[in-house]
């Protein structure tokens, strides 16, 4: 069936897109990923500084541990290193990820 085919293609595109760019907001709970980029311009400058101070920065690897209560699933509890940090989804949407399995092995640590 055509519609099934279209659905299949759409799903493959979706997976492909997901593997290249995924926002922290969309990371499934419990899966580890590396932060590829953070759009600092959408964060108030103090907030950006605090995020960085807590280790939420390009190159860091993070896991979503918990999502907030029922509606909205906001905020998010991230584990980073041996620490857990709570952030809001709006901020998570400014953070782009590279799923760990999609990271090429020869990529130098945290290219700058």
């Amino acid at each position, binding site marked *: 069936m055509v519609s099934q085919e279209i659905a299949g293609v759409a799903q493959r595109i979706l997976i492909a897109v997901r593997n290249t760019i995924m926002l922290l907001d969309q990371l499934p709970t419990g899966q580890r990923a590396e932060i590829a980029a953070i759009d600092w311009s959408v*964060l*108030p400058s*103090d*907030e950006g*500084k*605090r*995020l*960085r*101070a*807590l*280790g939420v*920065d*390009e*190159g860091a690897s993070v896991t979503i*541990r*918990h*999502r*907030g*209560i*029922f*509606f*909205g*699933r*906001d*905020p998010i*509890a991230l*584990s980073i*290193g*041996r*620490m*857990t*940090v*709570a*952030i*809001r989804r*709006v*901020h998570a949407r400014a953070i782009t990820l590279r799923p760990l399995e999609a990271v090429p092995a020869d990529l130098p*640590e*945290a290219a*700058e």
Partner: protein
Amino acid sequence: MTLHQPLIALVGNPNAGKSALFNALTGARQKIANYPGVTVERKSGRFSFADGRPGELIDLPGSYSLDPTSPDEAVTRDVVMGCQAGERQPEALIIVLDSANLDQHLVFALELLALGLPTVVALNMVDLAERDGLTLDPARLAADLGVPVIPTVAVRRKGLTELAAALDTVILAKQAPHAPLGEPDMRARRRRAETIAHAAIVSQTDSRRWTDRADGVLLHPFAGPIILFALLFIIFQAVFSWASPFADGLEAGAAALSEFASAVIPEGFFRSMIVDGVIAGVGSVVVFLPQIIILFFFILLMEATGYMARAAFIMDRMMAGVGLSGRSFIPLLSSFACAIPGIMATRSISDEKDRLTTILIAPLMTCSARLPVYTVIIAAFIPSTAVGPGIGMQGLVLFGLYVFGIIGAMVVALVLRSTVAKGGASGFLMEMPKYQMPRIADLAMGLWQRAWLFLRRAGTIIFAVTIGLWLLLTYPQVPEGSSMSQSEYSAAGRIAGVLEPVVAPIGFSRDIALALIPAMAAREVAVSALATTYAIDAPDEETEALALGERLAGRWSLPTALAFLAWFVFAPQCISTIAVTKRETNGWKWPIFMLTYLFGLAWVAAGITFWTATALGL
């Protein structure tokens, strides 16, 4: 012997255990002051080296880097760099690290080490690291950092002697860190920190097993909020039911004391002052000590176990609805005990507008000082009938008053966030600490401090106000055969007469106006003021012995009583709150704003209550 006392500063990330270490090293020899011009506390204390030489230790606010994002962090930077007004540069630093979170804590440590001051590292919380299956190599860490590294457990006073000895050595040798560690930017420091942390870790198992397992339940999207609300319900239940036997005991004690005083003091001025003034007034307030202790017990327990941060996490979504964040939840919850520690706790809110809004609505949380007022009025006017299994009418009204305050606060927060405290939506960024068993000694110490503060208030402000009111109520004496009562004729009565026209429309009599004036000092004074007023007016011993509630029931109408309750939901009758607001906002603007808007709301709320109740024929 030299008088020179070296200044030593404790620095590190928040929650590294600096304050715990500070307490362990200084014992009771502490002094708390403010840094000039800012609302940042300066905690200093004396400590002794092994040979008995004294040193001065300061506990600096926790920080993540020398690039501050709050006034607290700015003080930390200025002190360690030697440019804080009113402080000399420390001669040595104790950098406090959380062993279980080295790669994060070392980032700031590397920045501090680059300052080149003599330094000792306290590798703190090694007990928790062990619990989480983490073994560290302090010698390796010391070699990499170029300074002595001492494993400590601040709360069990482990490693303190070694720490003091190491400190002595580096100060005497003026020994700067020998590895030059100047890393210009945070990312480079972070990579360096990770390398050093990895080298120092001998073995580790799955991190934070305990905490993760507990969070799986306590932060569960459905179970989490249910548990939080159940807990809050238990707290309020406990405040009322657990406290009553103790409160009854205190009440009986006050009654016995008053009888004893009447028996031993000869009739006259002095007896009246002691019995009607001091014992009736102060006694009616001290009775609430058990409730305050129980409330603070739960709040301290939530803080000490690490659950408070989870409560903030769960509440963030709801707080976002009125333009605040989960960070405001902690100060607001503390405000149910007392707005003063609540307002002081707002210092942890980094966003200025958020903080201001939280300060301005904190007095709307039903603090423990309102309990005396609510309890007396409810007992006198609300029938103790059951409205359901285990739910009484009186309890329901009390609960309603709490809810009324919370709803009021939410509406006010919404309005403030779109008017005087307008600003972009702030975020919620918070480290979630590990769970841990609270230590009984810490809890007991915290409770003792709160109880003492309350009793001191009862012994000073409330005592003075009660005596003052008693004098104003007793003089001038009503002439024989006058139709006026003593309280009407007295100086206080005449002052209240001026206020009466303002509050008459909302159903308040002159007696109430009279009680409201001294209650500016503290809300609970309203009860003692009413008690004193009616004790003075009592024509004979028998009526004088009547409980305050019975007297009120005979004198006030139901609409008046309800309006009185509504008034106290909003009225900012607490000098200490105004004073702390002035201190925390650095000026008179916001305390005056707070007074105005709260009195306005109180008048309107009492008015609406009175007019509605009257129209309904209650």
